[in-house]
Structures are given as structure tokens and as C-alpha cells.
């Protein structure tokens, strides 16, 4: 009788241990998944930012921005005040049929008394997620602008 109650006690002890262990397992697995997702997002955001910086550097050049975009990103969709470049998950330009992410550059010109301030708002996003955004400006003095 004594041995039986001892084994029942052991069984209850192990069951409780497993119950707690399962609980902590569930929490740990969630944390692992979260860590993995964070790591992937971090890689993606860094790549997106370097891609946006590359486009920003093209904008800052003295050469014509639209011509540079045509040369560097032949599949880009170029409108008067907006440029859209389709990117894959490695942030490499691709044809628009199989797009995963989009880089959008919204262009704006603001005439001032002494020249023109050109602004580009560059953002990288997918249909569901926003990755990064940066704004770059370039000033063209009146003599140079005309």
C-alpha cells in the first residue's frame, strides 16, 4: 500500500513536471520563431535600405535621374513624378511579373527664388509590409536649373 501511494506520488510529480515543461516549451518555441523572424526582417531591412541609398545616390548625381534609372534598372516603371522598381527578396531588380517588393521614388520639385529644390521620397515595401523610407534633396541654383 505504501509502495503504491509512493508510485502514485511519483506519477503526479512527473505529470506536473511535464505540464510545466510543456508550458515553457511553448513559450521557448514562440521565442525561437520570433528570433528567427526578427533576424530575417533585420537582413531584409538592411538590404532594402542599401537599395534605397543606391537610388538616392543616383538622384543626387548631376546626371539626369531618369536616364540613370533607365540604365541601372531597365525594368523600372518610370512616370513623370514617380519611379517604381520591382525587387525580389534579395532586393535585386526583377521584371514586374514576379515582384516581391517594390521600391517607389516619389519626385517633387519646389521652385524657390534662387533655384529649384528637388526632393525624392524613396520607400521600399511589399503589399503587406513596409521596410524603409528615406528622403533626399538636391538643390539646383537658378543659373544651373535654367
Amino acid at each position: 500500500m505504501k509502495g503504491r501511494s509512493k508510485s502514485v506520488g511519483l506519477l503526479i510529480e512527473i505529470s506536473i513536471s511535464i505540464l510545466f515543461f510543456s508550458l515553457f516549451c511553448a513559450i521557448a518555441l514562440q521565442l525561437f520563431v520570433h528570433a528567427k523572424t526578427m533576424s530575417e526582417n533585420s537582413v531584409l531591412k538592411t538590404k532594402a535600405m542599401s537599395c534605397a541609398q543606391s537610388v538616392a545616390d543616383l538622384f543626387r548625381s548631376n546626371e539626369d535621374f531618369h536616364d540613370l534609372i533607365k540604365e541601372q534598372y531597365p525594368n523600372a516603371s518610370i512616370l513623370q513624378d514617380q519611379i517604381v522598381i520591382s525587387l525580389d527578396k534579395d532586393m535585386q531588380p526583377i521584371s514586374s511579373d514576379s515582384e516581391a517588393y517594390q521600391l517607389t521614388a516619389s519626385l517633387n520639385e519646389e521652385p524657390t527664388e534662387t533655384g529649384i529644390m528637388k526632393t525624392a521620397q524613396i520607400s521600399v515595401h511589399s503589399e503587406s509590409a513596409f521596410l524603409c523610407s528615406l528622403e533626399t534633396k538636391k538643390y539646383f541654383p537658378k543659373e544651373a536649373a535654367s
Partner: protein
Amino acid sequence: MQHSTAEKEHAILRFLIPFLLVCLFAVCTIIVTVSGLKVYLKIQKDTDLAYQSRTGASYVANRLRRTEGAISLKDNHTLLLTEDENGTAYETYIYFSDNTLWESTVLSGSEPINSEKIVEASDFSIQWIASDLLSFSITGADGRQDTRNVYLGKGDLNR
């Protein structure tokens, strides 16, 4: 006799159930440990790849931006930065050789010696895309390419 058989079965069950529970506990422990290890290795691999491609690309981009002297290309795999320090001209070579990107600063006219390793890569190429724009790409050991355009914003660049 019947009573003894039932007791025997009961005894087996008494040991079997805790044993199975301990086994379940062990299996769960292994699953959690393996999952943790997998996540750790994945993060470690991502970090290594980031170092190989993005860190190398960021280093070259910042090296180009902070150069005050002339920037020129010796060939499509070699970048030459010429700077003047207290009246003495120095040349910094950033070049690709033996699957590694190297940097070497020497007196003007000398060949690169005592080069320092920047990063391991499977390819590096650089070219002018405009008078004030350089484009370079570094391909990492995993074959992924990181391409950057760098605006130099200087009027007196050597091409």
C-alpha cells in the same frame, strides 16, 4: 494465482507509465534543444553572410565617400584612391585577389604590399556609371550579390 497476475500487470503499469512520461520529457527536451540550435545556427549564418557582403560593401562605400583626393579605377576589379598627406602622395589600392578583397596604402608609384584583408568574397567589380557616380558589386561566398551606387559629389575626379 489470478490475483498475483493482476498485481504483476499493475506493477508493470506502475513502472511503465512513469517511464513513458520520462521518455516524453526527454523527447520534448531534445525537440526544444534542436529547435534552439537551429535558430541559433540560422542567425549565425545570416550574421556571417551579412558580414561578407553588406559589411564589405558598406566599407568600400564609406571609404569612397571619405576620400578627399582623386578616385580612379585601375581596372574593373581595382580601385585606386590618391591622397596627399603633408606634401607626400599616397595611393590606396582596394583590389580583388584570391577570393578576398584587399586594401593597401603605399607611396605613390609603388605596387601594393602588406595588404590588409577587408572581406572574403567570390567576386568584386567596380565601374563608373556617370562622371560623379561609381557602381560596385560584391558577390559573397553564397553567391549573393550586393550592388551599390555611390555619389561622390566632386568635380575633379580622375577617370
